């Protein structure tokens, strides 16, 4: 006999996130430092590359790597910038 069980999940379907479209030259790109050691070294390199390609860059950081970016920070980035690159470290 078939067995019926109850779904232990939250019954959500994961949202598929497509890659961001290419940014036109001059777009403003936020670089979000998650505050892991040496994340700044990586972001410095990314910043130099972006500036060389004609983008303007805004450096920003989470208060701590242990927690998600606060909603205020996220909306601030969304208001001021066209795209964001988040640096992971380790």
């Amino acid at each position, binding site marked *: 006999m*078939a*067995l*019926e*069980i*109850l779904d*232990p*999940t*939250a019954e959500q379907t994961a949202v598929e996130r497509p890659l961001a479209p290419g940014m036109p030259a001059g777009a403003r790109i936020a670089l979000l430092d998650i505050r892991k050691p040496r994340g700044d070294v990586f972001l410095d390199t990314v910043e130099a590359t972006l500036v060389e390609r004609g983008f303007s860059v805004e450096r920003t950081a989470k208060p*701590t790597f*242990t927690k998600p970016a606060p909603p205020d920070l996220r909306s601030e980035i969304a208001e001021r910038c066209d795209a964001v690159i988040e640096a992971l470290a380790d």
Partner: protein
Amino acid sequence: MAPELLVLVKHDCPVCDQVLPVFDDARAGGAPVRILSQSSAPDTAEQARRLGLGEVPALDEDLEASVRYDPDAVPAVLLLDGGAERGRVEGLDRARLSALAAQVGTTLDVSGLPEHRPGCASKARDPEVAARLAARAARRDGRIRSRVLTVGVLEDVHEALHERGLTDGLPVVPPTPERVVAMLAHSSRSPQDLVGSVPPYDGEATVEKVAINAVMAGCPAEALPVVLAAVEAACRPEFALHGLIATTHPAGPTVIVSGPHADRIGMNAGGNSLGQGNRANLTIGRALQLVVRNVGGSRPGVEDRAAHGQMGKVGSCFAERLDGMPWAPLGVARGVDAGDTAVVLVATEAPRLVIDQLAREPEALAASFALALRSIAHPKLVLAMDGLLLVGPEHGRVFAAAGWDRERLCEELFERTKAPAGELARGAGGSAEGIDPKWVSDPAMPVQKFAAADRILLAYAGGDAGLFSMVFGTWVAGEVGSTPVHARVEDWL
């Protein structure tokens, strides 16, 4: 509606066989008699044929009437007047059956019946059937609302659950509606109450979802209130569960059950309390982690980026030993009323042993503990982690005899875990790790390991023999990381 006799029977009851022809005759003669069978249609038809009844009894669909009137035994004859019960006879009692029938103006031919015979257990009293009925009722009433997953006839249920990604790698108890509803009976909370939003995908953990995962973990049903409290505490923002899941660090939530409920649900706070052999100890922490996996959506290697992890991430839970405890329980120390039970959650690494078989004075024992606490994460890393010290009974009694309370020991450990700045600087001792030399103006300056004395948590458990305690390091602690949290366990048991 005129008064009637409702006769509940089942096919495999010899006493039902005896009374059925009597009521079948009465009905054929125009008496207000309704016969309902608890058995299946084929079994009921076979019984009618066997007994030569004039009419096959109707079925008590879903045992609805049997549940409503809930007789212990069948045959059960009820005198109903507009749906209200005016009398009943369970089993066979010739005189009382005749008297009941007389009330609806019917004379039964009971001449062939014995005076008295007990009946058989009503089918609704069969534990398996009762569980099925309770599950159906819970679905009908909206108490359980989860989607039903069907495991096919040709599938092995354990393999199917693994394949669907619903386990932690160990076998789980299949969460049938019957098991989940039975577990829900051990909480006074409504099954659709929200316990917390579980990271990383903010899945809504209702009491029902927690119970499903607790069944899967193998929890004893009476442990549900403890699991609910653990999930509630884990979802508090200050515990930073999102980061704890996502980190490369091996920590996971350790659940400390502090208070009298631990004993009531059969937890082990004595010998081998961190080890195998006790169902509640092993399954409460596992239930929390299954909630994180299934409700929160955290998968090892995907959202969970631990470089190594550790066995406690399957589930880590122990109870505080109240017997002989040298100070107030951890829950009480954190503000729960004495006599209540708390769960205290700490984001910990795997525990490690501290041996001191020689110290007989509290100062000497504190010095040994401090050495072990200094090694959390790295002896040269400071102000990053909290410490959890699980003091064993043979160590605890040293402090009890000296009259050291929790605060005194924490203060002592706080002082004794300080180290000279020069020893902690990067490069000192040949080790690159440590504090930036630019912060070291005086190499002799003591630098504290912990942010404050109360950032060393003390718990008490273990067996009677063994001059041992256990140290747990934590993940990044405090405001920038995870703060230990607690929740009171509801009284319902």
